[in-house]
Structure formats: C-alpha cells, structure tokens
C-alpha cells in the first residue's frame, strides 16, 4: 500500500516541529587488544583505533542524516572500562595521560564525547579502580570530552558501599576544579549498569561485547507530548495505547538508521535505546509530557503514577518496534537538562525526595541534580546509596549524576552551559547518616539472586 500524504506529513511534523531526532549514535570499541607493556605503544594503539573508527562514524552518520532527513544530533564513542586495561600500568600520572589520549582522539575524530573512563567494582575495588577514582578530579578538569562511570552494585553482588564512600569527597574535588562544578556532569555512578548504553555520561563498551558495536539512542519527548495534548479526555488505558503507537513509530526510525549505519560501518548492530531524553530546547521536555497528562506541575502527587504509565508505554511500543531494544530504555528525567523540570524545582513543586520516588518507576535515577557545595561528603554518599538501593532491590539500572556546587545554596541557579542546561540548586536533608554510612562494607545481594 502506497504511503499517503497524511503519513508523510506526520513524519515531517515530528522532525520539523516536535524535535524528533536520533539523539545519539554511539560506537562501542574494544580496547583490550591495545594493551601493551610499553606505555607509549599502548597509547598509540588506543589513539589510532579510536581516531580511525571515530572519523568513519562521523562520515557515515552524515550520509544517513542526508538520506533520511532525520538529524543525528550526537556522534559518540564508548570504550572498554579503562581501569581494566590499565591494570598493568598502575601509576596515577599514567591514568591522566591515558585520559588525555582518549580526549585528543575524540576531539581529532570529531566526536563530542568518549565514554568508558571507569570501572566495574560492584563487588570489590582493584588497585586500578582505586587509582582511577583518585585521578578523576584531575581527569575531568583537564579533559573536555572524556566521560566516566563506576558500576558499584548489581542484583547478584549487592552494593559496594566502600566504593560509594569514596565518591562524596571525589565529587567535591571535581566540583572545585571545574567551572560551576560542571565536571561532575561527566561522571555517573550506577548499579546494574547496562554494557550497551549509548547515552552519556554513562556509556561504556562492556567486557561481554564483541570488538565493536553500534548502539543508537532515539528520542522524541516532543512527539509524545504532542499526541498526549491531542487526546485530553481519554482514560489511562487509551493513553497508554496512544503513547505505545507513537513510540513504535519513532523507534522504527531509529532501528532503520541504526541498522543501516552499522552495515555501512561493517560492524554488528547493537541496540536501540528507546529512552525519552529531554534537551534544553523548548518543548523537548519529559516534564511537559507529564504535565500534558493533566498534572499541574511535575512533582505534584500523581506524578509517580504518570511516570510509571509513560515508562511502561514507552517500553511496550519500543519492544514491538525493534528486536534489539537495550541500554536503559525508559524515560530520563534529568533536572538541569529539562526546562520543565527546572521550572518545577523553581516553583517548589519538585523536591529531591519526590525526584527519588519518581526514579523508582523510571530509568536512570537522580540525574543532573545540583546540591549545595557545603553538603557533607557523607550526606552525598548517603544520597547516592539511597538511590542505588532502589536499583538493587527492584532489579533495575539506576545511576546518580549529582553536582555539589561550590558556594551555592538552595534556590540558586547555576549555568552549566550547552547541553547541560541550567541547574537549580536543590535542598538536602540537614540530618546526617554519617554513622550508618561509615560502616562501609557491602550491601548483601537481595534474595532475588537465590533463584539460580
């Protein structure tokens, strides 16, 4: 059956007026084969591999952008967790040098971010993991494109609180060394981190992956908001159906472009991540979708239900559209990167506590949350540990991207610049969990792991 004018117009509207785009194409590259006992050779192999693959990615992505008329906003690279490949080069300055190699290779290839400067330490920390964490304040202040992650827990190993306990102090150091604390935006701490997530800052090329994989993130909160606005009176079941149908369509676009790009790059296609991801563009906001449901301002009672409905419908529509749905695939609710979220915090409708509740039913966790710079490090560790425990107990991925901004107090607005947006500083509970958190050790794996 021929494509009708109506169908063409629907697609055109999504692209022209509702910000439908391929949010990211992320090329995962295995760096294990670059390891060399001679550090200079090691660095050269890493640079060459990233530069070569990165430049081809940009060239091929541009061709498809033209062919299909869908913007491919970000082109990125993720690599094998760096702590792993540095195990035989345990010197702090070498970690910094390696970060600079990644930064330069990314810059020269023309990709905007390179992810994977991180470690998998869900059960314990190796010497390399510790060194990497110690170097991070320098790494994130002396590079522009490098993104970092830690996976500190999983359903089967519990949560490594000793690793979490290193983070409050580390984040405060990063914040002091970078403008408005913005370096913290390039670090995410996860539990159950997916090995094929294409979204930054948490993307890395997992150890279970092949030599290379192309992962795609497609996004269109504006498209979903627009159909929700057109259906003001339908009940929740119908609303879910409408969202499913729309997400099906946008995921198919991602599937088409992802598969073709992988084919042209002669590498396997990894996954489509169907997460609704907001940007600072007007109308490209997940908070706006929730408000179009009929919630006066996100954070109001009813918001958790609304996010739960949205999240489930997105997953169902996406799963039908692609056999390779992966990554995080849900709904991001970053604070600073979503104008609707920023407004909700400003009008005191959204607090850190309610945000934590929302993350129990959607993906990613506490994302791009600014807190006062004088928050005690133990409190930062406790905020992280609280959020991550939601992931451990509920068998899901969650992460925390939090920015303790020096010299700022609740209610202040901090310009982070570019894609990172404007962060309203949120208030933090003034009572301490110090004596509990300092116990350290490991949160045992939840009983769900005993099904084996």
């Amino acid at each position, binding site marked *: *059956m*021929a*494509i*009708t*004018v*109506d*169908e*063409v*117009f*629907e*697609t*055109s509207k999504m*692209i*022209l007026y509702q910000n439908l785009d391929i949010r990211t194409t992320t090329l995962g590259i295995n760096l294990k084969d670059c390891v060399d006992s001679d550090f200079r050779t090691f660095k050269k192999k890493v640079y060459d591999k990233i530069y070569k693959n990165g430049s081809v990615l940009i060239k091929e992505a541009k061709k498809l952008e*033209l*062919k*299909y*008329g*869908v913007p491919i906003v970000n082109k990125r690279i993720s690599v094998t967790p760096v702590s792993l490949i540095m195990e035989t080069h345990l010197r702090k300055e070498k970690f910094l040098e390696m970060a600079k190699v990644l930064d330069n290779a990314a810059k020269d290839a023309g990709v905007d971010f390179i992810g994977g400067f991180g470690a998998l330490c869900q059960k314990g920390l190796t010497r390399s993991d510790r060194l990497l964490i110690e170097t991070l304040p320098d790494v994130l202040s002396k590079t522009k494109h490098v993104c970092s992650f830690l996976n500190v827990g999983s359903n089967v190993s519990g949560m490594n609180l000793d690793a979490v306990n290193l983070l409050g102090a580390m984040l405060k150091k990063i914040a002091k060394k970078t403008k408005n604390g913005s370096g913290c935006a390039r670090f995410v701490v996860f539990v159950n981190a997916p090995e094929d997530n294409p979204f930054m800052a948490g993307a890395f090329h997992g150890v279970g992956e092949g030599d290379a994989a192309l992962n795609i993130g497609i996004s269109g909160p504006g498209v979903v908001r627009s159909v929700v606005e057109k259906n003001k009176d339908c009940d929740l079941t119908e609303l879910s159906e409408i969202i499913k149908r729309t997400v099906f*369509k*946008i995921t*198919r*676009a991602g*599937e*088409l472009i992802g598969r073709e790009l992988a084919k042209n790059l002669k590498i396997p296609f990894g996954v489509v991540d169907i997460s609704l991801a907001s940007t600072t563009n007007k109308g490209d906001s997940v908070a706006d979708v929730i408000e179009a449901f009929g919630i006066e301002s996100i954070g109001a009672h009813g918001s958790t239900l609304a996010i739960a409905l949205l999240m489930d419908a997105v997953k169902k529509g996406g799963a039908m559209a692609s056999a390779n749905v992966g990554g995080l695939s849900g709904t991001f609710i970053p604070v600073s990167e979503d104008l609707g979220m920023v407004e909700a915090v400003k009008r005191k409708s959204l607090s850190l506590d309610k945000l934590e509740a929302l993350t129990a039913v959607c993906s990613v966790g506490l994302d791009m949350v600014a807190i006062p710079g004088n928050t005690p490090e133990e409190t930062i560790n406790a905020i992280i540990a609280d959020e991550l425990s939601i992931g451990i107990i509920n068998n899901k991925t969650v992460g925390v991207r939090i920015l303790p901004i020096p010299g700022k107090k609740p209610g202040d607005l901090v310009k982070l610049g570019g894609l990172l947006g404007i962060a309203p500083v949120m208030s933090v509970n003034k009572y301490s969990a110090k004596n509990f958190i300092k116990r350290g050790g490991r949160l045992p794996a939840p009983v769900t792991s005993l099904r084996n």
Partner: protein
Amino acid sequence: MKKELSFITVIGKDKRGIVAKVSDLLYKNNINIEDINQKIMEGLFVMTMLVDISGCRCPIKRLNSSLENIGKKMGLKIQLQHENIFKMMHRV
C-alpha cells in the same frame, strides 16, 4: 537501473509556481516524478512528490540544498527523504 525512491515534502502556504519550480529543478537533474499528491492539513498546504533519484545528475547533498533554497525563497519547508523511513514508521 534500479529505482531509488524518495519523497519530497513541501509544507507551507499555497501559492503559484510551487510545482513548476520544484519540477523544473527535478527535470534539470534527470529525476522522474512517480507520483504527486497534495492536501490541506491543519491549515497548511502539504504536497508530497514520490521521485526516482537513481539517475540524479548531482550529488544528493546539492539536490537537497537546491530544494532548501527554493523553500527559503518561497517561504516553504521542503524536505527530501528516502521512502524507507516512511515504510518503516508507518507499515508493520
């Protein structure tokens, strides 16, 4: 030669000469129009042309920017997109 079908979509206010200008560009570049449709939707004039670009004499990038130029001059949005994206999004 195997056909390579793309859609040209024109969105905006209806005026004289839209079809003439676009089809003149297509003719000069050896592009055949396979089908053409138009409709008023949500108060906008929407025209779609299904074209075969397999014999196109210029690179697609240039064709695209020529179409954009016509759009700019006439106050219209003009897009060129391979038909596969519509097939993927609207057919199961």
